[in-house]
């Protein structure tokens, strides 16, 4: 094989590998559509936006599942965003070098913990504890799920936000300090505002992580498909979209209406995560090193 031919072949091969990312995304969407769209023909739309999810009777109201996902994700976000951003600021701006060197790998370990393991601890320890402390009727509630999800989303938020803070040019801080601001004022009025795009990306990716999480949520939220009403619902069982797919897909007959509806939920999850991601990515966030953290 001549050298010129080899050059061309390699160039084509790596190009195909790169384009495969686009192809895969399209193929995934196509197969979800192919398996999920028949649900729209089989179940009348008013039923789909109904308030009862009761597959055995052929009632497929998606509203309780969508609201369940939203409630758990919202509560998890309220926990994870302040803690995550504060931790990122601590690591990037406050912690001495030695502490930083310990915390950064620790956050990475945290991100790598299997969610099923956290789910197991949720059942074994967190749920009984909440049940006794808060005198609930059951420990498996939306709140239990939100707590776990919060800690699952935190590492994503910390590493992306920390990178955003790191990317703020040194001169900004020096300028503020030279003008007489102390370190706290510099962080609060200069560094954080300068990094706000990246911090917002971090928040969006954290929300996406919480929203798409499956196993931990399925294990601890009790899985009752009821419409959550008011904040009291936080301390009652709910069922999310992801958990519904994971719990029920194993038991349905391929090609049945129930099967198609589960794929329809998959399409919704796909589209929502796409939207969250695009919003997150479109925020001004230029430096390239971030991509690695976003994806790992």
């Amino acid at each position, binding site marked *: 094989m001549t050298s010129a031919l080899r050059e061309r072949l390699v160039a084509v091969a790596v190009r195909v590998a790169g384009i495969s990312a686009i192809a895969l995304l399209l193929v*995934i969407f196509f*197969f979800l559509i192919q398996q999920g769209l028949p649900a729209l023909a089989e179940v009348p739309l008013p039923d789909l936006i109904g308030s009862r999810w009761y597959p055995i009777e052929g009632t497929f109201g998606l509203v309780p599942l969508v609201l369940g996902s939203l409630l758990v994700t919202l509560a998890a976000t309220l926990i994870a965003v302040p803690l995550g951003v504060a931790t990122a600021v601590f690591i990037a701006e406050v912690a001495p070098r030695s502490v930083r060197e310990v915390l950064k790998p620790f956050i990475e370990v*945290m991100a790598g*913990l299997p969610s099923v*393991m956290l789910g197991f601890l949720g059942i074994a320890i967190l749920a009984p504890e909440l049940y006794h402390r808060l005198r609930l009727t059951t420990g498996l509630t939306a709140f239990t799920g939100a707590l776990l999800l919060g800690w699952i989303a935190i590492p994503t938020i910390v590493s992306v936000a920390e990178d955003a803070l790191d990317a703020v040019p040194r001169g900004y801080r020096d300028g503020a300090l030279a003008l007489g601001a102390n370190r706290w004022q510099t962080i609060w009025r200069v560094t954080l505002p300068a990094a706000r795009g990246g911090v917002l990306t971090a928040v969006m990716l954290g929300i996406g992580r919480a929203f798409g999480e499956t196993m931990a949520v399925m294990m601890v939220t009790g899985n009752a498909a009821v419409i959550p009403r008011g904040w009291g619902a936080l301390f009652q069982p709910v069922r999310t979209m992801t958990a519904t797919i994971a719990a029920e897909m194993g038991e349905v007959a391929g090609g049945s209406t129930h099967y198609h509806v589960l794929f329809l939920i998959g399409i919704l999850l796909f589209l929502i995560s796409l939207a*969250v991601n*695009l919003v997150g*990515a479109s925020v001004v966030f230029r430096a390239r090193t971030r*991509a690695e953290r976003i994806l790992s």
Partner: protein
Amino acid sequence: MNARRQRQWTQRAGFGLLTLATIVTTLPILLIVLLILQRGLAAITPEFLLAFPSDGLRAGGIFPAILGTVLLTFTMTLVVAPLGIAAGIYLAHYAPDNRLTRSIRIAILNLAGIPSVVYGLFGLAFFVIFFRMGTSILAGALTLAIMTLPVVITTTEEAVRSVPNSFHVVSVSLGGTDWQSVRRILLPQGLPGILTGVILGVERAAGETAPILFTAAAVYLPHLPTSPLDPTMALPYHLYVVSTQIPGMPAGVQYGTAAVLLILVLLMNIIATVIRSRARARRRW
């Protein structure tokens, strides 16, 4: 003077809050890891690691689950490593700055954000049903490979890009072709970063349950898999089963399984960290 004192007080309070938040974030995870190791290590005996489960998973060992996870991640790596590394090289070195390249980047970002259970659905529709692989190691491994692809692509691109441009310039000025400088200069120099990316991908795949739920995993199998088209037990799925599906499960089995999974994941994390820090120490640029 008073304003200054107030400013100092604010700073102290602010830093205190940030420290507190960091403790609240990290301490529970540290305690969880220690708790699982403490309770789990007591349950881990040679029999637990090397025997089949018995008595409806309540006794015996978890060998088939450990082997299954190893087989799944190994098969996955065979697929995702070449594809991901090639795509990473393309983005780092070959890709022009045009609309196609931007589309590839957006696609990768979106692939990374798809919920793992949706990958499970896709694997079911595509590999299990459309390609008639059935519930099998192959179908599960391919599903995991697609899920892990974004991590491998981006870390490879990052690693190749971090090699100083002058290396490439020198190679070309000495008469090297594109591919020669990629193969002889950029890849060897970026290898530690690429390896780290692959290992982190494997770590993530080893812990995932949702993608293999309907594509590969079985609750219990009396035999070890003999072909890539056999279903398999897997560690994370086993942990899910023993912690939710079977009444009267001894805590030892649950914590033992969790500990084995945790040790596996921690081990890969440590290997990745060591590779990275050694490469950084040895680096001459």
